């Protein structure tokens, strides 16, 4: 046993996994008088599937009617419309297209529309090619028709997870990062404690939101009823200049059995991405990008949008979908009492997260009779965004705190004040990429070339750790070392 948690901790609920699902559940549970702890093995939240996916809030016509995926998607989409303002989320309600090139494809669109209506998706329409190109003029002339879903949108998934975590923390929940689950103690068929790299935590309920590792976590408690296979998707991200020759919304091809296909899609920050492909894997950590994958994505995207400006590509990345052996989300009570599953959360997992959170919370509240918190705080602390202020507000902010007068990231105009805030706010940044995801420092054209060393210095100062202890992203992603003989 080691670390500061060596004194035995106790919780009503331990949530395993700090992705969008885990953080949404934590935030929902924090509305009640329950002692909640979230454990995450990585140095920051949203470090798995949540940081690398298509960032789409789906309308909900894809999944079979009656499935968890269909129900949670449609409800989740509606909940994001409500949460957007409360949690100050970065969302653009762009609507989405599924485009068809031939008669078979048009038939599929009609099926999707019928299914969507059965799932309760509002506003679905089939448009002809000309009307589609009126809205997205750069799309292929060969597009015959498209399914238009007005309730779909794009969001910033990391920001959403961060918002859920911040809201939970200001309402008394705890987020333990760098805390890996090593076992689950079960006594008389009921969970008793979660063993972690930071010591055990006694728990009445354990919620399994462990992404691609959810089957391993479930097995630790003795529930082997499903497996999770990672399905890798690679992406290419384009500069903001690419949007005018690509798309301003979401464009899918007609879906296949395993995937919604390679799409062309805008981001909330004004960029465009293409991808993902779909590769079944065994390795739950394989986030490598490949040349073959890049070729596949470009070929797929060109079918939808013929002029892809290859020179405007700024980065490639890959994400792992947590595909369960059941084909649907694995939600609710396990055969092990006190263990609740929120597993197999692949697409539309991001959209479904707030609905899954309510579903899980209802079970726990129903069984424990927990009451709503009297002192519940809505939303999360405000964060000043320097670049979005007018001159007067900028001057006032610098007067209040001179850190806002020092620009650290020139490309995105991010001040030292914003970086200090990102580190010190609830569930704040611990790593260089954590600062980047919260503030955009290092996301611009120089990719941290100028601000990188300065961000490391600020992290070191604010966290009270040495420079060689500062990490990029992963558990052992140390960036710089002491010079030989420089110690002491």
């Amino acid at each position, binding site marked *: 046993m080691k670390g500061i948690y060596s004194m035995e901790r106790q919780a009503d609920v331990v949530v395993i996994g700090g992705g969008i699902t885990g953080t949404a559940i934590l935030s929902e549970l924090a509305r009640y008088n329950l002692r909640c702890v979230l454990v995450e093995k990585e140095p920051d939240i949203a470090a798995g599937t949540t940081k690398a996916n298509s960032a789409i809030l789906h309308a909900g016509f894809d999944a079979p009617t009656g499935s968890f995926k269909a129900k949670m998607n449609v409800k989740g989409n509606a909940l994001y419309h409500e949460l957007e303002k409360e949690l100050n989320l970065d969302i653009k309600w762009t609507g989405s297209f599924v485009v068809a090139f031939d008669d078979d494809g048009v038939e599929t669109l009609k099926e999707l529309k019928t299914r969507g209506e059965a799932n309760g998706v509002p506003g679905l329409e089939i448009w002809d090619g000309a009307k589609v190109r009126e809205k997205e003029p750069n799309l292929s002339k060969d597009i015959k028709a498209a399914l238009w879903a007005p309730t779909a949108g794009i969001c910033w998934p990391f920001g959403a997870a961060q918002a859920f975590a911040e809201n939970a923390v200001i309402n008394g929940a705890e987020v333990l990062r760098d805390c890996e689950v090593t076992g689950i103690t079960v006594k008389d068929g009921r969970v008793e404690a979660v063993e972690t790299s930071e010591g055990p935590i006694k728990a009445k309920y354990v919620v399994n939101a462990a992404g691609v590792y959810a089957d391993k976590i479930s097995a630790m408690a003795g529930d082997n009823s499903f497996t999770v296979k990672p399905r890798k998707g690679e992406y290419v991200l384009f500069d903001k200049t690419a949007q005018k020759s690509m798309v301003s919304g979401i464009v899918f091809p007609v879906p296949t059995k395993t995937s919604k296909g390679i799409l062309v899609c805008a981001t909330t920050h004004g960029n465009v991405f293409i991808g993902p492909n779909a590769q079944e894997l065994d390795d739950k950590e394989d986030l490598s990008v490949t040349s073959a994958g890049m070729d596949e994505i470009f070929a797929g995207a060109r079918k939808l949008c013929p002029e892809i400006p290859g020179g405007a590509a700024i980065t490639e990345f890959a994400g792992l979908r947590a595909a369960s052996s059941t084909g649907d989300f694995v939600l609710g009570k396990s055969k092990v009492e006190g263990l609740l599953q929120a597993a197999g959360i692949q697409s539309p997992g991001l959209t479904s997260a707030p609905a899954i959170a309510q579903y899980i919370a209802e079970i726990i509240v129903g069984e424990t009779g927990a009451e709503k918190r009297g002192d519940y705080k809505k939303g999360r602390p405000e964060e000043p965004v320097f670049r979005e202020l007018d001159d007067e507000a900028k001057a006032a902010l610098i007067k209040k705190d001179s850190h806002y007068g020092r*620009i650290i990231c020139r490309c995105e105009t991010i001040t030292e004040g914003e970086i200090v805030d990102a580190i010190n706010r609830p569930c704040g940044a611990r790593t260089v990429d954590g600062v980047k995801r919260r503030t955009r420092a290092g996301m611009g054209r120089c990719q941290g070339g100028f601000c990188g060393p300065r961000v490391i210095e600020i992290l070191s100062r604010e966290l009270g750790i040495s420079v060689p202890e500062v990490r990029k992203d992963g558990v052992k992603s*140390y960036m710089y070392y002491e010079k030989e003989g420089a110690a002491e």
Partner: protein
Amino acid sequence: MSEMYDIIIVGGGPAGLSAAHSAVKNGAKKIIVLERDREAGGILQQCVHNGFGLHHFKEELTGPGYAQRCYDLIKDCPEVEVLVDTMVLEVHDNKEVIAVNPERGLMKLQAKTVILTMGCRERTRGAIRIPGYRPAGVYTAGAAQRMVNMEGYIPGHKIVILGSGDIGLIMARRMSLEGCKVQAVLEICPFSNGLTRNIVQCLNDYDIPLYLSHTITGIKGKDRVEGITVSKVDDKMRPIPGTEFDIECDTVLLSVGLIPENEISRELGIELHPRTNGPVVDQHRETSMTGIFAAGNVVHVHDLVDFVSDEAEIAGKYAALTALGKNAASDRDLAVTPGAGVNTCVPQHLRLSSESEAVRLFMRAAQPKRKVKLSIMSGGQEVMKKILPVVKPSEMISVEIPAEKTAALSDDITVSIEEA
């Protein structure tokens, strides 16, 4: 309320400081230099090696030594104020400059002329697309140089450097001196993009292998770099299947080119040149916008800081004369175009007046060549020629057209390099 400056200089590196000094010598009375870092000197502050100043100061200096020389020239000038820790957010065409600084807050400064001396930045991994993981341990050479030379940390112990530009070569030596093992320097071109003296002094002297026509085709390691895969490339720079081999390393430093830092220029709306990525300038370093000047690496990337200072002195002089209303009006505008064998040429045009003046052209060759004739043509006539024993894209060529010859020029100019 706001005071009127003769000149606002954006960037306090060697270009900004040299421009300020020249402006004072030419009569400007009120100059402010705005520098984003904690002290003036720019990137020179992290270039602790020697080899600077042989042309401009006629002695060999380190980077900080050169910066100090530039600073010493102005530090006692009452005409010049250097404001550090200050970031310029916007420059407007009416010569208003918006900047922020922790102590003074948001500043709106007004000048008669502006000199842009923002320098350049490094190209990154994203711009060149390396497949593989995205672990810690991949840095631009300049970022690593700052950490080693100014902050006192090393980026790793077993190093591979991609790109044989000067910063990459200098860092190969620097890391060796720090006790690190530099496994290899890889260059995708069939020739090095660094100065010859740096190949000799930084690689050969330390037995560091240089692989020409090779690039990285894979990075291994999930949290931290554990190794790379290298491939030979064909004459179109595409990796050749079957030529892959692995190198063990924990660090990859990228020295894959520099780009003039022109976001402010772009927002301001001045014309940029597609090849240099810098403002189009005349021989006085005046941009397409009257009263806005530019000099140094923001105009085109230099290999010697000495030339940066030379160029900045021109900009400083003519910004001062413009601010004082003493600049002679031009009566003809001649384009300067790179011809055969020449990649870039600065200035891009000459605005000549009745007052004759000497003009210096700075060029880069398109290909490495031996025994060449550089010729400057105007209206079908050869204005000047120069025989050069060797030209390389990495080494900037400078030629001066004397005053008596510029006085006679009346047609556009083409510069070309051909086998002698």
